[in-house]
């Protein structure tokens, strides 16, 4: 009966973005909305946390296990963060509209990565 604690969202690629859509479904023990962005928790991560009931988390301030992360929100714009979280099996939402490239390209799939994401690309799913 604890299922109602969390809601799900669908995240789609924005203009010139790539990948997705991803369904973000936090659950007990795996509810972190993991913001790996400059300047604290990104508003997009906070927005996803607010909609889903997940916990916004600053990846540069504290440490969490990958199995606790419902989604990683990044503003990488490049080559490193874009591949690390998909490689670790973590769903990844990239704010910048980029297509995957770089040495970690092989880990990035439409099923674990979506880019060009803003507030408008996050849709609450009613059960």
């Amino acid at each position, binding site marked *: 009966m604890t299922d109602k604690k969390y809601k799900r969202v669908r995240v789609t690629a924005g203009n010139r973005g790539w990948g997705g859509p991803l369904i973000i479904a936090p659950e007990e023990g795996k509810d972190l909305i993991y913001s*790996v962005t*400059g*300047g604290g928790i990104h508003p997009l991560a906070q927005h996803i946390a607010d909609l889903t009931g997940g916990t916004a988390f600053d*990846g*540069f301030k504290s*440490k969490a296990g*990958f199995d606790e992360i419902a989604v990683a929100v990044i*503003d*990488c*714009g*490049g*080559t*490193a*963060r874009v591949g*690390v*979280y998909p490689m*670790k099996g973590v769903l990844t939402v990239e704010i*910048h509209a*980029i297509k995957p*490239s*770089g*040495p*970690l390209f092989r880990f990035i799939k439409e099923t674990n990565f979506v880019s060009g994401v803003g507030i408008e690309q996050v849709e609450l799913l009613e059960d």
Partner: protein
Amino acid sequence: MIKYQATITAIGPYVAEFIDHSILVLFGDQAPEELAEFAILHDGKELKGSLSVGDTVYLGESSYSVLAVGDVANDNLKNLGHVIIRFNGETEPEMPGDVCVQKKPLPEIEPGLEFRIEEG
């Protein structure tokens, strides 16, 4: 004018894979562990002036002219000590986080090596 100055403190176990692609990924030493695996960590703190085309990147004694600066490269460096340097000779950044510099051999990347960006 020196825009950024740092000393390399640690090299992640997967850095070599990026070096094979002529890419260096730098992060400030507060980076989470999963990023540190792929990164060259350093103790740089402050970006004193925006990085721009025509600046020079130094790795120890080796120098590289900056040919292109992506739209988010300065924010990354300022906020996270993070920069992606591609030693590819390109004048257009492929990704918004990229800094492209001259295509020249890299020195041995090891802790203690100085990383510096100078104007002009």
